């Protein structure tokens, strides 16, 4: 395979809840379902642990896309966590969009422990979307990009 050196490789942060999505990611691994190495997972107990600060922080530090995965609504290990997360992220993403940050850079996806295939498919698709968008310029912190 020829690798184009200038090919843009996005940095993607995926916040995954421990009980569903992280397990789903594990299942994707167990089933050897490939998705790009650009995706790095951060384990959180529940999607409701994801603070908007974390998402902005990721963009600041050089992420080009941030995705949050949690249990399907109704299936939260903690009963209600993902419902709160859903509201929070809906509003936050809407605000980022309102500020002119490309809305495709943020995403929420519900992935159960059994959905390894969905996890891989989601990540493939998200990486593709973000790759098309290119580097995050609108919510970047240049200080963090100096190498």
């Amino acid at each position: 395979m020829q690798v184009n050196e200038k090919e843009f490789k996005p940095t993607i942060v995926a916040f995954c809840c421990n009980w569903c999505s992280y397990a789903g990611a594990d299942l994707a691994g167990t089933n050897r379902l490939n998705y790009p190495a650009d995706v790095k997972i951060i384990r959180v107990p529940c999607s409701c642990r994801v603070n908007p600060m974390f998402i902005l922080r990721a963009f600041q530090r050089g992420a080009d896309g941030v995705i949050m995965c949690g249990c399907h609504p109704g299936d939260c290990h903690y009963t209600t966590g993902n419902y709160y997360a859903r509201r929070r992220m809906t509003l936050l993403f809407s605000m980022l969009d309102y500020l002119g940050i490309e809305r495709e850079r943020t995403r929420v996806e519900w992935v159960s422990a059994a959905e390894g295939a969905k996890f891989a498919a989601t990540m493939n698709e998200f990486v593709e979307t973000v790759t098309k968008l290119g580097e995050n310029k609108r919510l970047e912190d240049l200080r963090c990009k100096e190498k």
Partner: protein
Amino acid sequence: MQGKMIARAKELLQNGTVNRVIGWKAGDFAYDITPAVFSSAEELDAGFVYNDFCGANFSKYLVKESRKEGKILVFLKPCDTYSFNQLTKEHRIIRDNIYVVGVPCDGKTDGETLKLKGITGITGIKTEGDSFVVDTLYGEKTIAKADALPERCLSCKSKKHVAYDELLGEDGEVCESNRFDMVEKLEAMSSEERFAFWRGELSRCIRCNACRNVCPACTCERCVFDNDNSGIAQKAAADSFEENMFHIIRAFHVAGRCTDCGECSRVCPQNIPLHLLNRKFIKDINEFYGEFQAGEDTETRAPLNIFDTEDVEPSIVYEKGGN
């Protein structure tokens, strides 16, 4: 109204209902009015004013004042009462230590707004009907009140007092407000245009913290941005990211709690339309989760502290029209 207020304040001081009054104090010019605590009839006579420039919302002062000895009298305009309720709901003020007198409001302006209309060198102001007659060093100017009011008053959401112990004057009604017009206009723009708009606005931020410090929803004992241990402390808007970050997080922290009192935009020395951030959240909350007005009462749960199993998915942000 000013006379009535002074008279009532004196009565309440006299009969021991309260031991002090928080009100507006006259300054050197017609417009430079300072919030102040008055503890005697003499002080009230000497400095208490209530006029078209008394914009300051006193609710936040009550966080500290209501914890002091004795009961305090506060005059609240309709929009201030929403902040007052919100603070009561969040246990930030001790309601029992406050005596609220609701006072009517027809919109409040300030010196900076007049200056932006080209009126400078102001030495005096008279209200004549629907206009201000402004004496300046360079002659007399007349400006219609409707032209001299800031955006928050032009799109007033309510002239109704939602919390008070007594009212002076007639209570008003919740208004038909066009307050989301500008938000809608922005939403209709392309992503690039919105980005350019907000960069233009937020790049002026000098991080004086006036918006935060005046905000009745920002009453944290210690703000995360001031807390070196929070991991996101920021002292200055060192670059475009930090300008964005501060205002996004601040708006998020007050989302569902902001009553849209407009103090943030009033005090911004750089005239950044900060209310447009809060109004975006308010509008989204209304659209996604049903009409909600923070501070309308002291019971209803804030939209971010409750949910519905059928809530919209975050993907609505992508699906919604616009560009």
